[in-house]
Every structure is written in structure tokens, then in C-alpha cells.
């Protein structure tokens, strides 16, 4: 990690605005000594003129936090993954099925799934993220109750399904049937809200690398989600995080699980196209 006093950053930011990006470090992330994670990549084409390079939030955390993600034994989110692996094999609902009844081994069947989500579901005619897909299975195939959005079990399952895709490049489609929703998400990203009059871009595009009070601003990438946050020692989903961010602009937030946040999730995920799936990650 490179530390610079606040005043130095501010001075540099004033004179050479683009210099701020030097503040992300140049460490490389390899998990368990074998899964190589692409944490810096050329920005996808749709970010032309906005960003040159996309970076995982991992680069903006300090060395000790970074290290926790490099070994599954040290990553507290792996406890959630373990818990979800049990749920994967547990029969629930009226049909007498578990996830494994249809999908078999999670490491085989779910590999690569996270990399392309949220995505268009042709049969349902809607964009779905992982949690929505879980509930479709639970209700329509298993005859079980749907999980509430961001319920503990749902986030655990999100972590499990994400973990088996680690190292694969994020490749979320932005055209075709999802385009309208993607455009909506993009508009939300650049719209200032709240008493503080901030858009997502105000912090995560124009000021990443700088400090906002005691916090080191990242690009707000969600390739590492769900994320285990040390501050509340639990998993946070992308939409849960959005809620926190919107609240911090002192605006009324959207509801996690709402169509608006789904649009934002789709758009923000697409900003990370080219980075590796990294979740469940560890952040402060």
C-alpha cells in the first residue's frame, strides 16, 4: 500500500486531477496460491471517455485486509460459503428436492454463472440477478418459500455460487433485451441525488483514489461481491451496498430487490467487464 498524507493528495488532485489513480496499489491478487485474479483491466468499450482502466476495490484496501482474501482459510466469507454448501445439498419444500437434485455438484454446474449475471431470462421476460434466480428455483421447482431479498441464506448462496467462478472474467451483456434496463441503470449512475447532491460517478468515477474523510474511494466495482465487510462482520450484496451509498448522499434509498437497484446492479456489473470474478471478497 502507498500512503500519502491527505494534504498531499488534495494538492495533487488540484494540480493534476488524473494523478489520483496512482493511489491504487500495484499488488497482485492470487487466491490460495492458485486462482489468479485480474484486478486491473482495460475499461470496456462503453466506458470510453470515462475510464481508461477498471480496477477492483481490492487495490484500495490496506495490506492486511488484502491478505485476508488471499487464503480461503483467512477469508471470513468462506464460512458463509460453507454454510451455503450445506443448504445446496439440503432438501427443502414440497417437491422433495435440493439444489443438488437438479444441479449436481455446485463447482461444476455453477462455474461461470456469476460472471454473466445479472442477465436476461428469456422464459420470464425479465432481467434477473442471482438472488432472483434462486427464488425462481425455490418457488417453482422445489416448492419452497422464497428467500427475502438479502436474507442471510440468500447472501450465503450468492457467495457460494460466486466463489466457484473466481478468476473468470466478468462478461455481462449490455445489449439486446437488457439494453433498456442498462440505460436506466446508467442514468441512475450519473444522476446526482440527496442533500449532498452526489451521483455514483461523483465519487467512484471522478474521485477514486482520493479520500472521502477517512474512506479511500474505490471505483465502486462489484466484481468482488458479495463482500464480507469487516465493519459489520457480515456479507453485503451489491444492492445492499448501493443502499448504503445512496443513504450516504442523504437521499431516500431505493429498496434492495427493486427494479431500480436491479438496473443499477446490471450497469455497475457491466463497468467491471474484463475484471475477474473475485467474490466473496474482504473489504473494510
Amino acid at each position: 500500500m502507498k500512503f500519502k498524507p491527505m494534504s498531499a493528495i488534495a494538492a495533487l488532485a488540484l494540480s493534476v486531477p488524473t494523478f489520483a489513480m496512482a493511489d491504487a496499489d500495484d499488488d497482485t491478487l492470487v487466491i490460495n496460491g492458485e486462482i489468479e485474479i485480474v484486478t486491473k483491466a482495460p475499461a470496456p468499450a462503453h466506458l470510453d471517455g470515462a475510464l481508461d482502466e477498471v480496477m477492483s476495490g481490492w487495490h484500495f484496501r490496506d495490506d492486511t485486509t488484502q491478505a485476508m482474501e488471499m487464503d480461503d482459510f483467512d477469508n471470513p466469507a468462506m464460512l458463509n460459503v460453507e454454510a451455503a454448501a450445506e443448504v445446496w445439498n439440503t432438501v427443502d419444500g414440497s417437491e422433495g428436492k435440493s439444489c443438488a437434485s437438479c444441479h449436481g455438484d455446485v463447482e461444476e454446474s455453477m462455474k461461470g454463472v456469476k460472471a454473466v449475471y445479472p442477465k436476461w431470462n428469456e422464459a420470464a421476460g425479465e432481467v434477473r440477478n442471482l438472488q432472483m434466480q434462486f427464488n425462481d428455483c425455490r418457488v417453482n421447482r422445489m416448492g419452497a418459500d422464497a428467500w427475502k431479498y438479502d436474507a442471510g441464506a440468500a447472501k450465503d448462496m450468492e457467495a457460494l455460487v460466486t466463489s466457484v467462478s473466481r478468476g473468470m472474467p466478468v462478461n455481462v451483456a449490455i445489449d439486446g433485451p437488457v439494453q433498456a434496463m442498462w440505460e436506466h441503470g446508467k442514468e441512475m449512475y450519473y444522476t446526482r441525488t440527496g442533500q449532498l447532491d452526489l451521483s455514483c460517478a461523483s465519487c467512484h468515477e471522478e474521485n477514486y483514489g482520493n479520500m472521502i474523510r477517512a474512506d479511500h474511494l474505490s471505483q465502486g466495482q462489484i466484481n468482488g461481491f458479495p463482500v464480507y465487510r469487516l465493519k459489520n462482520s457480515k456479507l453485503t450484496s451489491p444492492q445492499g451496498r448501493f443502499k448504503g451509498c445512496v443513504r450516504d448522499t442523504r437521499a431516500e434509498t431505493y429498496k434492495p430487490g427493486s427494479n431500480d437497484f436491479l438496473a443499477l446492479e446490471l450497469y455497475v456489473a457491466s463497468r467491471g467487464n474484463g475484471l475477474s470474478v473475485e467474490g466473496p471478497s474482504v473489504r473494510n
Partner: protein
Amino acid sequence: MAEGVKPRVKAPKKAAAGETVTLKTLISHKMESGQRKNKDGSVIPRSIINRFTCEFNGKSVIDVTMEPAISTNPYFEFEATVPEAGDFKFTWYDDDGSVYEESKSVAIA
């Protein structure tokens, strides 16, 4: 007994004689401090792991007294010198009297 308690240890399977190895341990446990109150205002009883020990072939490596301020899922990482082949034995002592054990064998490479 506290629910969902599961000890985990990461230790090398082989070491050179006299080598110092790193051991990582974690036990999933809620570590209820005894300071919190529930909705009715009554105190949630303390339930923590109060002692953790590690022995190598019967000889003490580490012996830790743990207090209520330690957070959930306590994690310990420490080093030990391996003079000969043998077994590391890890023991966690729960407030409710439960004892959780785990052991790892180390061969001399």
C-alpha cells in the same frame, strides 16, 4: 451447547526437523459477550470460548485465556517449531463445558 460450532485448523503436512511452521486456527462460535440485552431488556447469557490450547506430542505450544471482548469466530495464527514427527492437538473450551478438539499430524520431510 452453542450451535454451529466447528473447529478448523490449517497446518502443513510436512516440515523439516527444527523448522518453524505457521498454524492457523479458527472456530466458528457466536462468542456472546454477556453484555448485550435482548428485546425484553434481559441480559443474554454469556457464551464464549474461554480457553484455547495447542500441544505438540503432549508438550504445550500455546495456552490462551480468552475474554468476552473477543469477536465472533475467533481466529488464532501462531508459529511452532517442529523438532520431530508428531501430532498437534488443538483444544477449545466452551463456557458451557463443551470441549472441541482437532488434531493434525506433521511428518518430517
